[in-house]
């Protein structure tokens, strides 16, 4: 089992993001993708979790546009990655209202800032599913 004394599941995920990679785990006992990253696999209870790098291609499962103060609007979406895991993110480079369910999207690393470590966003990849 992975020790938590030197590296954490989230720590490893962020290391990958810093390299421009979207990482996820697979439970090798039953070959299911696991996300968010863990030290013990859900359901099986297995510790046989293998890190893999996603191709970064996915489909918008659902989406909303948050309306903030002073007419600020931003997208929040759930993305189904082709490898079979889902994550919250946002689709950038497009009007938030134009983000549609079924739209194909591609991962991009966001650098974050002083308070927020780098994280995963998406941009349109062209096409729909």
């Amino acid at each position: 089992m992975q020790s938590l004394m030197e590296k954490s599941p989230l720590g490893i995920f962020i290391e990958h993001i810093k390299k421009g990679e979207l990482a996820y785990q697979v439970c090798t006992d039953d070959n299911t993708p696991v996300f968010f990253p863990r030290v013990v696999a859900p359901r099986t209870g297995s510790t046989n979790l293998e890190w893999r790098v996603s191709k970064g291609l996915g489909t918008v499962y659902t989406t909303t546009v948050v309306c903030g103060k002073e007419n600020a609007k931003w997208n929040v979406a759930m993305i189904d990655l082709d490898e079979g895991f889902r994550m919250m993110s946002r689709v950038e480079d497009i009007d938030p209202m134009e983000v549609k369910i079924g739209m194909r999207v591609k991962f991009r690393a966001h650098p974050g800032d002083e308070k927020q470590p780098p994280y995963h966003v998406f941009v349109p990849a062209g096409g729909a599913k």
Partner: protein
Amino acid sequence: MSHLKRGSVAVVGAAESDLGKVAEHTSPLDLMAQATRRALDDCGLKMSDIDGLFAAVGQVRLSPLALAEYLRLKPNYFDGTIIGGSSFMAHIAHAQAAIEAGLCEVALIAYGSTQKTVSRTAAGRPEYNYYETPFKPFLPASAYAMAAARHMHEFGTTREQLAEVAVAARQWALLNPKAWEKEPLSIEQVLNARMVSYPFTVRDCCLVTDGGGAIILTSAARAKTLKKKPVYVLGTGEAIGHATISNMENFVVTAAAESGPKAFKMAGVKHADVRMLSLYDAFTITPILFLEDLGFCPKGEGGRFVSGGDIAPGGKVAVNTSGGGLSYNHPGMYGLLVLIEAIRQVRGECDKRQVKNCDIALAHGNGGVLSSQCTVIFGSENTL
């Protein structure tokens, strides 16, 4: 696996605290104590009769301890299960188990919130979550909005159908003197209100008010000796799905699809027997999802089911007769008030909004972001 016994316990006392916007410096515990006093007066029991304590309060981390301290109770049994707004439906089931097992005889379930007075942020600071916080979802609204968007995509549900839920709630609220909202509401007003998180305008979202309540439960035998007609617990079902919206497996099916069948199986009643539904309406999509998941209409038909005023006064099914979280009151974890309205309908205490021959009512609680789902079916003496 053993099962709880249909009708082994009954609600004997039920009361709201003051609701709406309370005086500055009021604490959630003041509201809980006030509601407890009113619930005791409602049934004629004394404070010293309480030997089971159930409490879950967002603003008070160690809720059972704090309420026991306030009232100087020494309960034989206590439970602080906190799973959001459905906590109190879970407490009903847990109290029934404890009473059946002889661990306590008179159970108090209490809740209070001052989120309107102190502000929502002060009442419950959002927890940082690397996998969600960077995207700034307006929680909980954005989570429910994404479920609504998916429902619209899969089943053709429309914003007008969502608005029907808010309009029906408002029509019921106008029959309830305790409701926060006092003015009529139209579908156009819902659609044209300020957008919060697409497809929700502010009128698709529950109110933010202060308030609380208390429920007192005891054995069926003891219930018969008290002031009011007992409201029996015929069935309960509890289910949990996820904690964060990112981990909801299917955004159009909630764990109510598990809690509902459990409750109906225990109660041994049919859907057609249920005269009134109290469904946690945090957002306009939730009664639609629960009508489907609890089996009152097929999956995907919820939007059409609520249309044409069919859940409003005079409609086909009486839903949220208090005016609901959308128009009556919504003090944070609103589930306790969801229960109280169903209890009052079975007692026949609802005056202008009373549902005729309401021998069976269903109260369904939702917690977190469509996370926990707990169902309680209540019945009058006629149903035993």
